[in-house]
Every structure is written in C-alpha cells, then in structure tokens.
C-alpha cells in the first residue's frame, strides 16, 4: 500500500488529492480538496489545503508528494510533474478508456494524446495568440453581459449561429458590437464564438494520433456550449478523423492533482526498486 498526495497549484485555485494505491492496480481516492486563491499568498493556501486534505484522508504517512502546475516550489514536495503529464493520467483515472485530454485554460489550450496507461504520447499547444482562447470567450461574454455560468446554456439555444469574422480576440469585440447592432441574439453570438473555438481545438486534435474519447479538462470543461460545439465540429470531420467522443467529469478540475498523486506512486515504486526509498512523511508527522 502506498499513500501519495498530489498538489496542483493553478492560477485560480489549489487542488490537493490524497490517494492510496496497491501493487496490482487498485487505486482509491481518499480525499480531494480545492481552495480558491483569491489574492492570498499561495504558499499559505497550499499548506492549508494540503493539511485539510491529509486530515480528511485520515492517513498518517505519505510516501510521495507530487506537485504539478505552478507547484514546483512547494518545499515538502518529493517530486514535480508537469501539467500535461498529470492531466492525462488524472483524466484517465476519472474516465477510463479515453485517448486524449483537451485542457482548456484561460490563455492556453493543450491537446494531449495518451496511451492506455496515461502516458503522454504527443501534444499540441495553442500559440502565443489569444484568438479563440478562454479569455476571448470571457471578454465577449462580459461585453454581452452574460455571466460565466450562463454562457453554456445560452449557446445551446442558438438557432442561427453567427461566426465571428475577425480572428483577433480583441478586435473581435468590434464584430460582436456590430452583430448586436444587427439584432443578432446573444445565443447566436456565443455559439458563433464557441464554434470558432471548437474549430481551433479540432485543428489541435487533428494533428495528434490517439484512440479513444477526448476528455475536456480545465476551466472551460463545464461550459456545455463549448462541449456541444466541439462535438458538432468533430462530427463534421468524422470522415477524416473517425468518430470521436467528447467527455468530461464533474471532478475534472482535480485531474491534475489526481495525476500527480498517481504518478507519485508510480515513481515511488520505481525508485524503491532502484533502492532509493523516499518518504514524504516529514510534513505529515
């Protein structure tokens, strides 16, 4: 039995997951907690969240503490894993059988192809242009006076989606203003934005090879409008790409910390075999 923790330090929140793994594939999630940072000092939030999660898990020894995201500096970590590594593994834990993760963040989107064990096989990231990013959507929504949670529902109601012609995330506002003034509904505009984002994601996915469903994680995973648009966009490319399913999970925000905990266990075992046994117990004591 190995107990491990994963700490995912994001830009908005810290997520901690504690897991137990046994030698033959048994993986149990003991606790998971997410805390929003809200302008507080990150180290404090990490400590707090970690302590709370350990307590909730009711364990007194942790063999490996894996960090991910911006958690490279956590002093009591055993090892650090990068976001694509952990998101792939965590997503696979949440939804077995998937072949790729699409991590949609505010500025970047990463598409990661994995094998059946959650190993990263290949990835694609969006460039240093925010066209079609989460922030882009947020800006448009703000202009339209739509709150974050409403975006998805409204988008689904669209009847005549209107494509945003400009590619620039900032200049697109002008197009949107123009659309509003032409009497195009909020739903149709949002759906149009979703569609152009979805097209962009399809381009990312298209350059990867993988088998299985696409798991959407990250800040926009809960945007049902985006998921629908992505499904539709993939369906349109079915001839070329084959049938691709799009899934997500209520706990998708924990994908990174789950992955870090699971890879921690893997690494711990590997190092033990080589005679290097590390225990992260000091912090837990």
């Amino acid at each position, binding site marked *: 039995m190995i107990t491990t923790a994963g700490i995912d330090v994001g830009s908005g929140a810290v997520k901690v997951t504690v897991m137990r793994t046994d030698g033959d594939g048994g993986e149990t999630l003991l606790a998971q907690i997410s805390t929003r940072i809200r302008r507080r000092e990150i180290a404090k939030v990490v400590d707090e969240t970690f302590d709370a999660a350990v307590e909730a898990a009711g364990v007194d020894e942790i063999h490996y503490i894996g960090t991910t995201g911006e958690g490279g500096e956590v002093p009591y970590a055993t*090892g*650090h*894993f*990068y*976001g*694509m*590594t952990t998101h792939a593994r965590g997503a696979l834990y949440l939804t077995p059988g998937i072949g790729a993760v699409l991590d949609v963040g505010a500025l*970047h989107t*990463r598409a990661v192809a994995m094998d059946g064990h959650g*190993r*990263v096989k290949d*990835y694609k*990231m969006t460039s*240093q242009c925010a066209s079609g990013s989460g922030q882009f959507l947020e800006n448009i929504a703000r202009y339209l006076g739509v709150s974050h949670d409403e975006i998805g529902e409204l988008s689904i109601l669209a009847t005549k989606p209107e494509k945003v012609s400009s590619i620039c995330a900032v200049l697109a506002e002008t197009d949107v203003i123009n659309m509003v003034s032409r009497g195009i509904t909020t739903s149709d505009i949002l759906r149009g934005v979703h569609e152009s984002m979805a097209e962009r994601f399809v381009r990312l996915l298209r350059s990867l090879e993988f088998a299985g469903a696409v798991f959407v994680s990250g800040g926009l995973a809960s945007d049902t409008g985006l998921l629908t648009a992505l499904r539709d966009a993939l369906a349109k490319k079915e001839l070329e790409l084959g049938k691709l399913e799009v899934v997500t999970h209520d706990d998708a925000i924990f994908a990174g910390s789950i992955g870090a905990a699971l*890879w921690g266990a*893997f*690494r711990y075992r*590997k190092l033990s075999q080589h005679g290097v046994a590390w225990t992260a117990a000091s912090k837990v004591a």
Partner: protein
Amino acid sequence: MTRAELVEWARDIYDDLDFTVVRQWLAEHPTRKAAGYLPVYAPRELLHATGFLPVGVHGGGDRLEIIRGDAFYQSYICHLPRSVIELAQSGRLDMLSAVLFPSTCDVIRNLSGMWKLLYPDVYVRYIDVPQVPDPGAAAEFWAGELNHLLDDLAGVSGHRPTDDELRHSIAVYNETREMIRTLYALRRERPWDVPTEELYLLLRAGESIPPETFLARARQYLAAVEADPKRPRDNSRVVIVGAFCEQPPLGLIKSIERAGCYIVDDDFLLGNRFLTHDVPADANPVRALADAFIRNDMASSVLYEIDPMGKRNLMKNRVAAASADGIIFATPSFCDPALLDQPMLRAGAETAGIPCIAFKYAENTGQFQQFREQAGTFADSIKLWGAA
C-alpha cells in the same frame, strides 16, 4: 577568479551590444582591425593570422529592440538577420573592417549582398564552403577560396602572414577547439557541475575576445569548477539539436535545465566546433585547413549529406556519444536548414527508439512558460518511463 566572477565577466560581454571589449582591444593599438563573421563556420585562423580580431556576429538576442531591422525583413524570415542589421544600422558594428558571410543558408547569403550595398567601405565576402566532401575537386575549390580570402584579408589588414604565422594561428585554434571539447566532455560527464548557461556564456564571450584570452579564462573556469562541485539532481539528459545559427535566448536554455533536463550536448555556436579534429599545424597551412574541412567537418544541417544513411544515423550516434535520454529539437522559427532537416533526423531518432520533442523559438522570445512546460513534460516522461 571564482566561478561566479568568471560567469559575470562572460555575461557582461554577452550583454554588451556595443562590443566594448572589441573596441577596447582595437583602441590599444592604432593599426588593429576587427572582422565579423556570421554563423556557422568561418575560417578564423585566416583572420587571426592576418591580424584581425575575429568577432562572432550572432545578433542582439532578447536584449535588442528592433526598430530598423524590420524595414529589411518580412515577418516570415528568421529573426537573426534583422537583429544583425539592427546592430549594424545603429552603429554597433562600425568597428568591423571586414565581415564574412558563410554559406549557412540563403538568408545569410543574401545578407552579404545587402552588406555590400549598405556598407561599401567594409570588406564583405560570401564564404561558399564546399558542399561535397570530395578530396579532389571540392578540396581544391575550397583551398582556392581560402587563398582568395587570405589575399583579400591581407589587403585589408595590410599584413600578409607567412606560412609559419598561419601555422601558429592554426595551432592556437587547435588549442581552442581542444579546450571546447574538454568543456563539453566535462559537461557530458557532470552536467550538474557545468550548467549549460555558464558554458554558453563562456563560449559566447570567447567570440568577442582574442583566442588566447579565451583560453586563459577557460582554464580558470575549469579550475573553478573543480573547486566548486555541485550536487546532481534527478534530471533527464537531453541533446539540443537545431540551434546552430540563430541563438536561443539565455532564458530558454535556463528554462530547459530548470524543467528537469540536463543538456549534455548541443549545437549552439556550432562554428566553434565545426572542425572535429586538430588541423595539422606542420603542413601547407591553407591546404591543411581546406582538407580539414573536407575530412573532419561536423555533420550538420548546413551542409549537404552525401551518405544516404547519414541523416538517419546522426541522432542515434549523437545520443549514444552523449549517453543522453532524448532529443529536444529546438529550432529558430523560419530556419530552413534546421526545419527541413528535422523530419529526417527525427525519423532516424524515432527508429532508434529515442524520445524526441520539438519546438521553435526566436532569439528575442521573452516568454518561456511554453518551453518549460514542454521540456518538463518531456523530462517527466523520461523520468517515469525511461530506463533509469
């Protein structure tokens, strides 16, 4: 000097876009002259023997704002030439009496023509290295080119070197090459002791100072390293491929190492190591230099590969020689030689089961988060599933 002092000394030279060290050297003697050369390979022995200070012209990196350089280059041309032009147009290269443009690619080649028009008073030469390692026609051609260059340089500097002087210069550069080989070997063995950032700064400084000074500093550095050993970390070992011309920003090199990758071999500042063996210092000097290029040139993207299996095997051999875990193809955006080679090199590496990743940079890239993430993911995968 301590390691930190040496590194700071080198960093100052690297940061200084006005080439103060070169200007100081020139000021010491009224007859002195300096000659620039662009990446990748230039016969520095000839410059040295004719009395020039050879100065590597590698652009201004992320330390230079491009104001006039964009007037000369479209957005889809790599960054190097525009920053070189920016340096020149702002007067920062006005201490060069001659500039050599090696046949690295069409961009540098065309830049030679631009230089002729922009700076008619500077000696400009396009260095058309032989593309085929043919000891007959190609060696003869190259010897002819070198002789031609020698005549021209002697004309500019006013000093026609004797054969012995040429041999001496060859010997000095043999020593420089040997020193660089030693440094590379040390980093390969103990990458934690020779961080690539430091090694890079040292070599970069070496391109603005006389080779003799470089040798002295490099010896001091070696001693400093032995006096100040560092602790190894649980990092992966990688080879960097593709960065032979436009140099990556220092931040990129640091990001790769911080993301958990020891760089154990690279092709930064490749011209330094283009001749892989000593050049005989006791023969007809020009002929010896010509033959050395034909026989002992570094296999790289800038030359035609005559061996059909050459591209396939190159990565395998390089990784084996460096006992590396994987390859990072780090290429400047829009760099034809590097990017056209990459599919062939990568196919060879992948056939040999070597993990690879690839990304593109520009010398003035300021954001490294993407690179860190990719290098980190790569280090993860080696750490988790590699042999170690």
